[in-house]
């Protein structure tokens, strides 16, 4: 392919993925409320449109038209920068997710449904996740409110703490697939999905993913009654909307990463039986099904488990998950070097 057509293809892919991400995130808000309702024997939003399907749009319109308020003494630039960074980093993660096998042919042209197949893809994910902390910190600090600041420190130290265990928990995968490249990691799961090879790694990764996305049971920023909310206490209107919405985008992104790293990405049983073109299409669908299942799982957990206290959260992160992850690395390191 010539460069121009490659760039056009990638740009189109990025645009499509952007729209899909926002769409899924928007409908996750609806889905969350429905799931919550069903789990509590209620009905959930059903007034806006048939089955309440227009609810996300109504919510968005409401958010935009709400009164803007900026606390006195807050830093104007940083106050806007905070939610922007939160949203930006949330959207950046899915750039390295491979949505199809690398290079399938349409009319002699080779295509791969992946925006950037960089050879350190998995580290890129961690880099972007670690930058998400800035949105929270800047947002909390620039609010000129000590509770926002404390909330920001709380949320970001939570994210940093769990990043460590998260990073360690995927080292067995990297050792097993001998690559940091996302496409290679997915290809290495052609026979067996990683979940069956590294169940403990998956468990640690999953728990850390909950902590990284600030979801229950680690959703301390959400508790208004006990902790005066979190970093977004002073935010109103669409700026608050960005913070809240970035949580859902993050949920989509981490579901995508979990499906890619542990559940074989676009692989599904009986993939080799189908003709190549059909397999690619079904593969994309299967990957999205996995992602949606994990989004549901995030919600399922949210309406099941109560919130951790802050010291319990730190205890779990540093004294349970970290040692477990280190043991995991040592054990799998030994296995891979001696066998």
């Amino acid at each position, binding site marked *: 392919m010539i460069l121009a057509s490659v760039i056009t293809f990638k740009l189109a892919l990025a645009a499509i993925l952007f729209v899909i991400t926002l769409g899924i995130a928007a409908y996750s808000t609806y889905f969350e409320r429905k799931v919550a309702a069903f789990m509590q024997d209620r009905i959930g939003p059903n007034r806006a449109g048939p089955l309440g399907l227009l609810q996300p749009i109504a919510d968005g319109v409401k958010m935009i038209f709400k009164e803007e308020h900026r606390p006195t003494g807050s830093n104007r630039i940083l106050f806007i920068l905070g939610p922007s960074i939160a949203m930006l980093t949330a959207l950046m993660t899915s750039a390295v997710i491979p949505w199809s096998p690398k290079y399938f042919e349409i009319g002699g042209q080779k295509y791969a449904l992946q925006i950037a197949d960089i050879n350190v893809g998995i580290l890129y994910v961690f880099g972007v996740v*670690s930058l998400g902390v800035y949105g929270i910190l800047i947002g909390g*600090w620039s609010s000129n409110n000590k509770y926002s600041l404390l909330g920001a420190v709380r949320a970001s130290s939570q994210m940093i703490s769990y990043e460590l265990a998260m990073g360690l928990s995927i080292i067995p995968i990297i050792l097993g697939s001998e690559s940091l490249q996302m496409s290679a990691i997915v290809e290495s799961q052609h026979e067996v999905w990683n979940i069956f090879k590294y169940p403990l790694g998956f468990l640690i990764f999953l728990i850390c993913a909950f902590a990284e996305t600030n979801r229950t049971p680690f959703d301390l920023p959400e508790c208004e009654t006990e902790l005066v909310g979190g970093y977004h206490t002073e935010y109103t209107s669409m700026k608050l909307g960005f913070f809240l919405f970035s949580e859902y985008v993050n949920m989509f992104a981490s579901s995508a990463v979990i499906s890619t790293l542990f559940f074989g990405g676009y692989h599904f049983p009986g993939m080799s039986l189908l003709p190549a073109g059909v397999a690619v299409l079904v593969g994309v669908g299967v990957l999205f099904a996995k992602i949606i299942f994990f989004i549901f799982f995030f919600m399922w957990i949210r309406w099941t488990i109560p919130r951790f206290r802050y010291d319990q959260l730190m205890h779990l992160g540093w004294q349970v998950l970290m040692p477990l992850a280190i043991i995991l690395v040592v054990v799998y390191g030994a296995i891979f070097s001696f066998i």
Partner: protein
Amino acid sequence: MEQVIFYGLALIAIVGALVTIFARNAMYSVLALVVTFFAMAGLYLQLNAEFVAVVHIIVYAGAIMVLFLFVVMMLNLNSVSSIVSNNTSVKWIAGLFGLAMAGILGYGTYVTTLPARGVNAAENGTVKVLGKMLFNEYLLPFELTSVLLIATMVGVIVLTKKEE
């Protein structure tokens, strides 16, 4: 094209570094430093050193600078006097060290002959090559660094541990 990007990134890095030094608000200093790190990561990317670039962002921007931000936010550095020292002798010493550092770096770049960008430039930055280099040619410095890190870590734990 490549040169335009290089000079753009270099300019961002230098401006960021200058803002870091001269900003009156410590918060801006830290954020400007983060911007500098990003520009440098961009420069690494131009050299096909993807691993170094990403690790640079994870470690410096993602971890170290966040801890800096913690400290800055907690200290409430509103007054200028608290971060800008008025001690003239300190300024002189700092200037001297800065000049010495610049001299060393300048000399270093002057003496070293950089290898021409070969055909396998794309291969040089990959994790495989980097790992082989670290554990063969640079094994001793690598292990020494790890010993240093372990020592620091133990020190931190001892310092933070409450007296029983």
